[in-house]
């Protein structure tokens, strides 16, 4: 409720400005503004805000779950974008490049919020469940009974996933980004600014934590006999 109120406050100018033209910032304009500096940066900053704020804010809100922190993160990202504009070579579009900077900032904030405590092997899981990693295709429901089981498992997953996100947003978000963007081990290492070895350990922790927070989902799947 509180979050919703803050989001509405941020959106208060929507109607009064609806008729203003929005100058979309493309990468060529961005590179030119970076080269020219001065007043060109001020206009480009405004265009950057108009072009990308809404999308980045929603993404930040999903990651940080706090409207003020999300707004702060996006504006901080825009400042970093200009401080690092010389490093943008124009090989990709602007948004993916900005998104990486945003995620670095999000990770910094999440690390400040939560100290990373390694989990022991198999914490929260029985050996049976660990061994019973299941085939859980959402499309494979043949009978009404199987469909009901699928729905139940999906609800249990959602409950556990939300808890994972709330308690340990760093690992949960990195898992979500892996799903969203198909990140490889090297790309995750760059994102986390860690060595490949430390990144492997981090990914291992993601898996262990998922198994812990989603233990009920794993157990349901094992009980349904859908074992590989």
């Amino acid at each position: 409720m509180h979050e919703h109120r803050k989001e509405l406050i941020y959106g208060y100018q929507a109607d009064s400005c609806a008729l203003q033209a929005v100058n979309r910032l493309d990468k060529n304009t961005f590179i030119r503004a970076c080269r020219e500096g001065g007043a060109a940066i001020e206009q480009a900053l405004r265009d950057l805000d108009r072009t990308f704020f809404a999308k980045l804010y929603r993404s930040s809100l999903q990651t940080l779950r706090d409207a003020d922190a999300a707004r702060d993160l996006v504006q901080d990202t825009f400042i970093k974008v200009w401080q690092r504009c010389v490093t943008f070579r124009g090989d990709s579009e602007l948004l993916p490049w900005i998104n990486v900077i945003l995620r670095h900032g999000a990770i910094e904030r999440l690390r400040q919020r939560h100290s990373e405590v390694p989990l022991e092997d198999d914490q929260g899981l029985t050996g049976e469940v660990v061994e019973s990693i299941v085939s859980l295709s959402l499309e494979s429901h043949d009978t009404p009974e199987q469909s009901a089981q699928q729905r139940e498992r999906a609800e249990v997953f959602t409950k556990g996933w939300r808890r994972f996100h709330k308690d340990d947003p760093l690992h949960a978000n990195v898992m979500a980004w892996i799903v969203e963007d198909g990140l490889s081990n090297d790309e995750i290492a760059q994102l986390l600014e860690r060595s490949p070895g430390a990144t492997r350990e981090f990914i291992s922790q993601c898996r262990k934590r998922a198994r812990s927070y989603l233990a009920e989902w794993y157990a349901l799947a094992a009980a349904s006999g859908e074992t590989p």
Partner: protein
Amino acid sequence: MSADDQDRWLDALAGRDVDGGSQEGRALREQIRAQPPPPLAVVAEIDPAREAQLIARARGAALLPAGAPRRLSVARVALMAAALAGVAIGVNTLRYTRVPPETFRGAANGVVELETKDPRALKLRLIQELKDAGVSATGYERLDRVGLDADLSLPVAPNVRRVLKQHQIPVPSDGALVIEIHAPGVP
């Protein structure tokens, strides 16, 4: 949990699954993708207050020059006049020992451009500060252009980053630092 097992799990989670891949990773991916998105936040595309805040932050980070002066009260003007008188004495004393402040003008093709009233003095100061940070920079002056360049070791050391940050110079990702310094009004 073997390294191969974890690689298969990561590949499946990332959607790079192949036959014989991790069913656990695949199932997790399906469930994560099936999660309902959070309620859509209402965000104005154009928000003057938000833009003003961003511009203020950019000025605070020295990305932009300070804004236009505002209307001042008589008392504040008197106070500022007194302060300026004091500063004038100090400036007169320091004018030959301090380098004028520079402004970051931008960068293109890996060349950082700075603007200052005394480019040569700034060049010498940068070379000295980089030297103090363990970097050997080479200065040059040709065809009215004053600048310096240096090859920074990667990853760039924190003390070198500090020097660059003090002058609003972005850290080059490839370690090749090239700076050109202009006087105001000189293109």
